[in-house]
Structures are given as structure tokens and as C-alpha cells.
């Protein structure tokens, strides 16, 4: 009996784990653990990302080529492929939501250019001497148009829009190299210095800050250094709970491989399917479960970075040091301007025994924010707690798959009736907080109760696991949805900030928050700017509080509009986003919480960190990379 219940328990846990992974990650079958320190090139590549990324991924949109949203012949939305929970499902309410929200129509298509026109790609200007020396090292490289264009952009709206429209890129990398290990990188950087070649590190390619864009004024040969083949876990140290990993590994592979040994990093940025460890370090990434595991800067124990001056690394792996300013912090957030992160030692944790989603409905956004603040104050935030505004709540609902059972339908209806009619929540005001608890079962249940009790004091009603999980699904498919929007004249983008709470609560009915003020003002500014710039349709502006801290919160905005009737939608979009950022800064928000600065937000750096601060960063850059080999021109 005992062993039986044990095994069913472990089975349950295993299922749970499977669900986590299968929920938003690609399923993988064949793989051995890579827990032994390996020699360069000793092993074939086992990662998800092939050298020719375009073989499995879209060249002009988000994610896998086989997964996309489309409106079928009946006008119903479908998500193709087999990779996700939503894959193969029909989403009956999406069309209505889409048409009503944007004033768009499934009959008005704005299809993308079907294939890359290789002749529109600027010819590669190669540094012959560099190529000769590189050949001698045996490191693979390419100067095919598809490879080069793939690495000429991130996922900013203007970049994807240009690809879809078949517009010519002004500057793309002249060649791509695929180092297999740290030593390869050392060789490449040495050669780049020797031949004065510009290097741009390329990890997952998920940047949304124009960080991967090649500076048009760059006249040297630009080499994209693709880290995707450096994707092994070199060792796991269970005694100290750290793992030493090559920095090109992407999130889903890292998590999958660690899971096989019973561990996880717990670092789950929304882009984790595609973004890489090195990219996280270079942008100061943040994961949704940072309340338990910390942000990337809390997770990193040791870094190996190849710069034009040589390799930077610390001499030990002590958990904390007082050895002057932490040199890791020159690297964390350096956005590829100083060198390439090749290896990272990071913290790992045993896979949690139990995981549970949850959700709470609040009568309005104010009450929700007040609750999140209280949760943060009591330091009892679950692994993840997010508050979606009403727009996003409705958006999430539009993604509900077709319900087969009449019973579920009935229950849903009953729930809706209870909340809106019985409890008097206004369906156009109510908001939902999604929760994710992790830990041992006992603790999770206790924790859950504590959070629900706090929520109740702010008028929150528990609204079930499904609503919670759906909220997280939205964040993984949102980028796919953007591609759908762009098929029908809708452009969309997201941006984020962090802001102090500054709370002032008088009663349930009356609370003021800087967070709230910022959300309201930014939304209003967007609406106003859109109107002034001739956008014909009411834009969608939506926000959610995605992270809580002792002293503030991270706020994430979605912004989308129907661009029919606009001559240059991307330009309009960019002006509006610019205005929104000014509004954020004026309201006490930061330039970025985790997306980074790239080239998109460079103009505000001085204002953000003072000109002295910029000078300090500049002097580090000047010392480490005097010839601007890492010439992506981000940040400064």
C-alpha cells in the first residue's frame, strides 16, 4: 500500500512535471544527459536549435514554422501544429473578439511576402583575410543570404513588419559563425581583433530592443556570432546546487536537461522557448518565477566572458564576495557591447514536488493592485503572481478553446453568473490575478490559503486553476498572435517598466498607487497619441502587473491597433511607443525592467542613469573594447 501510494504520488509528480513542460515547451524524446564535462566538438549537437534555424523556425515571424494562428474557412481561429496545449484546437470566440476589439475583419487580409527575396539582401562584404584565418580553425560559418538575414533582426515590430513586407534591410551581417565551445569563441574574437572585424553576438534572437540590428554606418565586415551550438551542460554540482552551462543553450533545453537530473533553474522568462542563457545575462533578464528563484543576477554564480582584451572570470565560486564592485555587473546588461558570454555557472534547485495554478477575480484593477501590494508587503508572493487588467482578461477569454462537454459549459456559465450577477462584478471592470504556487504539497496549500485570504480582504474571489493557467498560456502564444494580427492589418507590440508602489489606501473603494497612475496615464497617452496621429480605430491598450517587489512592481503593456488607412503604420507605431515611454518616465517608471535598452531606448540613457553614469559605462567599454570590435552600438 505504502509503496503503491508512493509510486502513485511520484507518478502524479511526474505527470505534473510533464504538464509544466508540455504546457509550453516543445516535447523532446531523444536525449541523454550531458552531465559530464565535455571536450569541444567531441559530441554532436543535441540542442533544439539547428544551425539553419529557418529549417524549423519562421523567417518572418515568431516561433516554429509549424505553429501559427489562422482563421479557417469558417472564419474560426485555429492554432496549427502539435507543440502546444492550444495546438490543433479551434478557438471559437477569438474572431469576434478580434473583429470587435480592432474593428478589423477576417475579410481584410494583409498577407506577408511568402519567401525571402535573396536578391534584395545587401551582398556580403567579406574580410578575406579573416575568412582565410577562420577557415584554418575549422569553425563552421556561412554567408548565405537566409542565414545572414535571419540574424539581422530581433522581434521588434518594425523588424518583423519589414520582413513581411519584403523590405530591404539596410545592413545585415556579412557572415555567420557557429562556435562550438569557449575556445572557438576565443579564436574568433582574436581573429576579429586581428583583422578589425565587427562581431555581433547572437543567442536566441528574441530581442525586442533593436539590439540585433546592424548599425547601418558600420563599414567593417560584420560577423554574427551565433552561440546556438554551445548548448551543453558541462557539469552539475549537486553538493553546491550549481550547474556549469554553455551560454548558448536556450531556456527550454536547459530546463529539460536539468529536469532529467531532477533539477531546474526556475528561470522562466516568457521567451524561454527560444532565448538563451547568454542573452539573459547580457540583458539582465527576469523570469516569471523570480519570487522563488530570483532574477538572472541572483542566479549567476560565475561567468566566463571573452572580450577583445581577453577572458574575464572570477577565481572562485563563493556565494558572495566583497571584492570591490561586482565585475559580473559590468557583464549583466552589457547587451553584447563588451564581449561574448561563453559559460555560466548558475544556481539550480530540485524540481518542486508540487505545483498549482490559481486565480483570483477582483472587482477592479485598483483592488487588484492593492492586493498585490499587500502580498508583496507580507512577502508571501507565490512563485508567480500577475494581475491582468480587464482588457487582457477578455483577451484571455477569447482564447478559450471549444468546450466539448455541456457540463463544463454549464459550470462556466454558473461561475460567470455568480461573479457578475451575484457578486455584482462589472464584467467590463473586473480583473484577474493569476497565481502559480510551487513547493511541497503541504506548504503550497498553506501558502495558497494565505494568499486567498489576503485577496478576500480586497474583495477578491478565487476563480479556479483553469483561469490561472490560461493567463500563462497567453504569454507564450502572444507573439504568435501578433503574427495573426499582422495578417489582418493589426500591428502590436509590448513594452515594460518597473515602478515604485507609492500606495495610499483609504478603503476598499479608494486607493491610489503610483503603479495605477502610471498604467492609467500611459494608456490614456497611447489613446490620445493614436488619435492625434490619425489611427482610425480605437487601439487596444492593456497592461498587467507581472512582478512584485518589496519596493515596486513590474508592469507590462500590450498595445495594438488596426492600421488600415495609415500610410506608414510602423512609423506611427514607433511615435506612439516613444510617447508612451516618455509618459512612463514622467510617471516614475524605469526605462526597462528586463527587455533592456538596445538601440531602441538609447536616447533616454543619460536621463536614466545620469551623464556621469554613461561616462562610467563608456570608460569600461573603452578599456575592454578599444576598437569597438563588439560594435552593435547598443546601450551607449
Amino acid at each position: 500500500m505504502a509503496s503503491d501510494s508512493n509510486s502513485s504520488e511520484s507518478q502524479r509528480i511526474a505527470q505534473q512535471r510533464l504538464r509544466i513542460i508540455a504546457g509550453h515547451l516543445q516535447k523532446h524524446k531523444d536525449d541523454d544527459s550531458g552531465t559530464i564535462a565535455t571536450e569541444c566538438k567531441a559530441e554532436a549537437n543535441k540542442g533544439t536549435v539547428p544551425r539553419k534555424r529557418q529549417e524549423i523556425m519562421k523567417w518572418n515571424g515568431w516561433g516554429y514554422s509549424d505553429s501559427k494562428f489562422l482563421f479557417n474557412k469558417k472564419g474560426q481561429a485555429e492554432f496549427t501544429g502539435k507543440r502546444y496545449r492550444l495546438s490543433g484546437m479551434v478557438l471559437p470566440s477569438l474572431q469576434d473578439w478580434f473583429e470587435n476589439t480592432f474593428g478589423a475583419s477576417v475579410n481584410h487580409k494583409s498577407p506577408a511576402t511568402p519567401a525571402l527575396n535573396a536578391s534584395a539582401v545587401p551582398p556580403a562584404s567579406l574580410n578575406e583575410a579573416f575568412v582565410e584565418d577562420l577557415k584554418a580553425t575549422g569553425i563552421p560559418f556561412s554567408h548565405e543570404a537566409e542565414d545572414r538575414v535571419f540574424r539581422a533582426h530581433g522581434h521588434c515590430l518594425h523588424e518583423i513588419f519589414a520582413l513581411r513586407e519584403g523590405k530591404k534591410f539596410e545592413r545585415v551581417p556579412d557572415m555567420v559563425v557557429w562556435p562550438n565551445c569557449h575556445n572557438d569563441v576565443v579564436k574568433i574574437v582574436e581573429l576579429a581583433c586581428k583583422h578589425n572585424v565587427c562581431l555581433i553576438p547572437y543567442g536566441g534572437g528574441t530581442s525586442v530592443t533593436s539590439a540585433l540590428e546592424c548599425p547601418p554606418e558600420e563599414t567593417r565586415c560584420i560577423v554574427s556570432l551565433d552561440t546556438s551550438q554551445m548548448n551543453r551542460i558541462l557539469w552539475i554540482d549537486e553538493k553546491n546546487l550549481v550547474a556549469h552551462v554553455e551560454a548558448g543553450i536556450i531556456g527550454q533545453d536547459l530546463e529539460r536537461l536539468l529536469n532529467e537530473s531532477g533539477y531546474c533553474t526556475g528561470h522562466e522568462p516568457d521567451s524561454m522557448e527560444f532565448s538563451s542563457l547568454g542573452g539573459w545575462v547580457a540583458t539582465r533578464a527576469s523570469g516569471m518565477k523570480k519570487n522563488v528563484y530570483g532574477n538572472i543576477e541572483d542566479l549567476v554564480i560565475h561567468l566566463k566572458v571573452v572580450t577583445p582584451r581577453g577572458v574575464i572570470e572570477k577565481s572562485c565560486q563563493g556565494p558572495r564576495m566583497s571584492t570591490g564592485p561586482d565585475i559580473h555587473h559590468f557583464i549583466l546588461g552589457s547587451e553584447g557591447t563588451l564581449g561574448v558570454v561563453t559559460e555560466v555557472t548558475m544556481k539550480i534547485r530540485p524540481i518542486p514536488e508540487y505545483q498549482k495554478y490559481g486565480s483570483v477575480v477582483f472587482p477592479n484593477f485598483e483592488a487588484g493592485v492593492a492586493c498585490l501590494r499587500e502580498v508583496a508587503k507580507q512577502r508571501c508572493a507565490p512563485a508567480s503572481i500577475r494581475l491582468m487588467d480587464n482588457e487582457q482578461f477578455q483577451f484571455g477569454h477569447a482564447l478559450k478553446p471549444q468546450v466539448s462537454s455541456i457540463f463544463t459549459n454549464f459550470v462556466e456559465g454558473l461561475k460567470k453568473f455568480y461573479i457578475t450577477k451575484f457578486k455584482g462584478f462589472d464584467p467590463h471592470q473586473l480583473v484577474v490575478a493569476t497565481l502559480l504556487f510551487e513547493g511541497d504539497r503541504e506548504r503550497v496549500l498553506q501558502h495558497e490559503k494565505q494568499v486567498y485570504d489576503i485577496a478576500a480582504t480586497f474583495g477578491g474571489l478565487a476563480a479556479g486553476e483553469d483561469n490561472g493557467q490560461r493567463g500563462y498560456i497567453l504569454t507564450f502564444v502572444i507573439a504568435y498572435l501578433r503574427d495573426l494580427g499582422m495578417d489582418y492589418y493589426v500591428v502590436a507590440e509590448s513594452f515594460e517598466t518597473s515602478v515604485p508602489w507609492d500606495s495610499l489606501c483609504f478603503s476598499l473603494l479608494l486607493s491610489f498607487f503610483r503603479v495605477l497612475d502610471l498604467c492609467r496615464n500611459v494608456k490614456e497617452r497611447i489613446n490620445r497619441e493614436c488619435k492625434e496621429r490619425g489611427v482610425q480605430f480605437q487601439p487596444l491598450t492593456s497592461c498587467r502587473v507581472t512582478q512584485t517587489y518589496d519596493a515596486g512592481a513590474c508592469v507590462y503593456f500590450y498595445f495594438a491597433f488596426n492600421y488600415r488607412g495609415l500610410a506608414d503604420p510602423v512609423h506611427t507605431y514607433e511615435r506612439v511607443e516613444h510617447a508612451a515611454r516618455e509618459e512612463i518616465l514622467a510617471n516614475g517608471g524605469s526605462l526597462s525592467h528586463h527587455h533592456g535598452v538596445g538601440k531602441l531606448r538609447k536616447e533616454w540613457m543619460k536621463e536614466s542613469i545620469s551623464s556621469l553614469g554613461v561616462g562610467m559605462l563608456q570608460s569600461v567599454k573603452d578599456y575592454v573594447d578599444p576598437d569597438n570590435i563588439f560594435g552593435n552600438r547598443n546601450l551607449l
Partner: protein
Amino acid sequence: HPHQATQMSNYCLNILVFVTLQQRDPMLKRDCFEDILEERRNSSDLKYALRCYAPVLYKGVTPCKANMLKNIVLQSDQLHYVINQVSQESGEAPDIIQEEASVILEEMAHRLQISTVRCFAFALSKAFKTLFQHVCVNEEGIQRLQQAIQEHPVVLLPSHRSYMDFLLMSYILYTYDLALPVIAAGMDFMGMKFVGEMLRMSGAFFIRRSFGGDKLYWAVFSEYVKTMLRNGFAPIEFFLEGTRSRTCKSLTPKLGLLNIVIEPFFKGEVFDVNLVPVSISYERILEESLYARELLGVPKPKESTSGLLKARRILSEDYGSIHVYFGQPVSVRSLAQGKVNRSTYNLFPRHIPRKPMEETQSFVNDTAYRIVRLQEDNMVLKPWVLMASLLLQNLEGLELSVLTEQTVWLRGLALSYAAFLDWPAPTAKVVSSSLALHRGLACVSGDRVSLVVGEPLGPVTPEEALFNRAVSVLSCASYRNQVLHVFLRPAMLAVAMLHLSDEVYNCFSFLWDMFSNDFILCPGDTVQDFEEACYLLVKTGAVQMPQQDIVMTDIGQPTLSFFNGLLEPFLQGYQVVCRYLCEEASEGLTEKQYIPAVRSFAVKLILAGNLRCYEVLSSDMQKNALAALLRMDAVRKVKNRMISHINQTPISPSLSLVAVAEDLYRDGLTPSYIR
């Protein structure tokens, strides 16, 4: 250098001035008026007072009960912070301070009740119909206001000429089914117990006239106002001028309340704040002769209920019509664009009170001046205003036909300067009806029109006769003053041309500076105003500007001399003050002694036949002159005592104040130049 300045101004004259004029002056698109009394005369007042009143509110906010509002204020972090601070400084327990705060709030807070408003609506309907011929409102302005109220918190900023103003405002808003405002009123009303409470229940909240260093008072007050604004419970109304203008000139704005209502925008607590300037113009002011007496040193009667009842006799008179113009809402956000960096507010907790930064202060100051100018621009001017200006330049009286003819001429001039004239009938008719309405001020005997001088009962001393005459002149001046904002800039240029024709710009800028306590001259606008003056004088053909000179044209004489006459009382007033300070003032003159002393100095001059200008007796002008001299550092205040520097202090390299004073004194009154 003056020539350079003139040259420069010439250079950009046509472009810049035209643009700014057009921006500032919505003359081309002023709205039409509707008489709201008309309906009152044709339907039941009772029904009107009891009708359904359901105004649209700010983004559908639910109105907040007065008590709830008080609780919010008393529990606010802002107030708690100050309470703790005061408690630490004074050693009193926080509870006691909290109690004090609650007493202050009790004394201050409004208790808006719709029933009281309905009572007022009924009573005022009756009163207005007896007192006034028309109460005209621009309905488009009302529509704009209605829109604005829904979008962002609204601050109503009416001009202040009469006690009537805020009752009138609430009455109009009630009539148009708009949200009733809460109104900042001076504490002096509370002297009248019953009326005070009535006003409180119709939305007035009361603030002490001065509470200098009282931190707690300030905290309660500002939090009270901000709470109302942030939540958009009701439009907030206050008078930028701070008090009723006894002279009918706009007063230089007070910034305290404006700072308070703008701050929530800078702190990001609201997306925007709409400032709505409202211009209320009375054809005849209820307090007309009361004001004149007050200016002449008869203290204003303390507000008391019985005093107000005595005022009942007022009800038997005709006060003509009122025009209320609701201006275009001004978005603080748009005004502040590029002028104030809001992110500087981000490094301080929002509940800790802070002095506004310099950048903010100058923005608020600038905004206040712009709003007052907008008020001025939309003031409806009645024909009598022009006639009063003419009569004051002809104290001995003039022929009715001449007056009519000159009124026609002046109307043309005023119109070409974008004055907002209400000219309901042909001029001859308008002149006679104006004279009828203002028969207490001007009379027609035979064919001659002249100022009425109050008939003394029994024998009078020369001082008493002088005083009676001064009352008429000051009453009349209060009408002329209404048109000054239209003519001020060209008039200053005309004076400058007359006195220092080779340094016109310098002289203009000197006058501009000196008069900036008396008139609404936006800080820093000297050059722009100069250009505007040039533009207007050139436009009406009074001057030409060949190269860098400014020259009077053949037909310019009447205009320029009218303008000189217009400003003459002010020039004389300032000269008398300067002379007094140079010749008579003893060292150690206190502020308190100053006004009576100048007054008796002026009386002496008039009685001796050395001065013909009665306006010098106005305490308003005396105060402004002193303030100007203090500001220009010609006089210094040391522990409440004035020390004159007029003789020693050079004001500018080429123009010392005394030189100008002497100069103006010598030549300024050349009778030949005055019509």
C-alpha cells in the same frame, strides 16, 4: 541696445506678432450668447428649482458625500506626515494635532446640498430678473465644459468683480445641468453666520485669508483641494485674482491654489487638468460706488447679514446685463509640454510636501498670467466702457454729439484691436441707453454730457467736495479700466514715443516693467508686447516704421493722444508717489502710514491746483506704485519701514527712475497734448 531691439522687433514683426495675436486672440471665432433669463421670464421658477438635476460627472465617478471626503483627507498619508512633523516640532501629541486638523477641516469644508442649491436657484431667479435685463452665456462654451468635465478634472477660473460671481457661476452650471463646483471662498464671509452656512451648503469652502507659516493649515487645505481634484468629485472653482478687483482691472494672479491644483498632474496622479477661464462682465457693477469709497480709504463695510439686507434697495435698480463667457479649456499637460520635466518628481515620496521647484514655479506663474489674459480677452465690453474712457479725458464735459462721434471712432479703434464689444443697437441709441443706465455717473444737461458729482447736503469743506468728485471719477474709471487691456500695449508705446522718441524701446520696457503691478503683463513678454504694440499701431495707421524708426503718421495724432490720455492718470499717480517719497517721506515710514500719507499729500496738491488727477487718491494705485518701486529696488523695506533710494539708485544705465519721473512730471501733463 534700443536700436538693435527695435530693429530686431521690426525684423520679426510681421510673422511673430501676427502668429501670437492669432494664437492668443480667438476673436475671429468667438461664440454667440444666449440669454438664460429669457426662459426664466416665461416659465415657473419653482418648477425650475425643483426640476430633475442629473449632471454628467468625471468618467462616471460616483459623487462623494461631504463627510466621506473629510475622512479621506484626515486619513491621508500626506496629512499624517505633516501632523507627525508638527507634533515633533511642537512637542504636542499627534492626537491633539490630528484633532486640530479635524477642526480646521470642519471650519473649511463645504457641505454641498442639492436642496440648498435649489433654494438659491429659486431665489436667484427672482433676484436676477429684477436686477438684470439679460444674463448671457456662450452655450458652446458650456458644451466644451461639459465635454471637459467628463475627460479630466476641471478647474473653473472666473474673473472676480462682484460678490455675485460665484452665485452666478453655480446658478449657470445648475441651469445647464452641469456638475456643481466647489468654490474656494475667503473666510470673511463666515462673519455672516447664516449666509456663510448657506454658501457652504451651496458648495463654498472657506479658507483663511492668510495662514503664512501654518504648516498644518496648509496641509489640510491643500490635501482637501487635491483630494477633490484627484477623484474628480466636482469641478473646483476659485478666483485667480484672489479677491474682487475694486478697480475692474484684472489683478495680478495669486499662485497658491493654482499650484495646488496643478501638482497632481506633475505627480502623475491625474492624466491632465483642464483650466477653464471664465470671463464675467457686468454692464453695471452692484458694488460700483462701494468700491470707489473703499479705494478712497473708507474701510469696506464688514460683511454682515444685516448689511446684506440693507442692500435690498439695490434690488430696485437696473443693472443692465451680464455676459458670462466660458473660455476654451486649457490643458495643463499641453502647456507643460517641454517646460516642466515631470520625472524630477519621481525621487521623492509623493506624500511628503515639497516646495515647487523653480521650473515649476515659473511655469505656474506663467500659466496664471496666461489664464488671466484669456479672461481679459473674453470680457464683453459695453459701449459705456468706451464712453467712460472719453469722459474721463474730458472732465469738464463734452457735447453729446461729440461724445457720440468719438464713441464711434473709438469703437472702430477697439474693434481693430480685437476688443470683444457688445453693441446691441446703432451708436446713437446705444449712447443714450448707456447714459440712462449710468445716470448715477453721468448726466446730460442741455447738450452737454458730464460726470455727476454727488450732491452734498449742506455746506461742505473743500476736502469733502474733492472727495465727492473723486468718488465719481473712480467709479467712472472702473469702467474705463475694463478696456485698458485692449489698448494697454499700444498706449505704452504711444507714451514712450512722446517722451523718449529716440529710445522708444527702452522707454517702453521701462513703462512695462513699472506698470506690471497694475496691469496683466506676462513675465518675460516685454519684447513680444512691444512687437504687438508696434503691429497694432501700424495696423491702424497711427505710426509708420520706416527702417528702425517709429514715427507718428499724419493721421496718428488722435489715436496717440487718446492713448496718452488713457495712461495719464497712471503716470501721474506714480509721479505723485515718487514725489512724495522724495520730498516728504520721513525716514522710517511704515507701510501702515504710507497710504494715508500719500493720500493727504495728493489732496494738498489737488487743493493747491497743482494736480488735477483724482485717481491718484486710489489706494490701489498707491499700493501698486509702491510695490513697483520696491520691486525695482528704488525703495527698500527694512523691518516694515520704507527706505527710499529714489535719489541714489540708478534703475538702468540710461534711465533712472527719478529722471523719468521728473521728465514725465514736467512734460507729461502738457495740456496741449491732451484732448
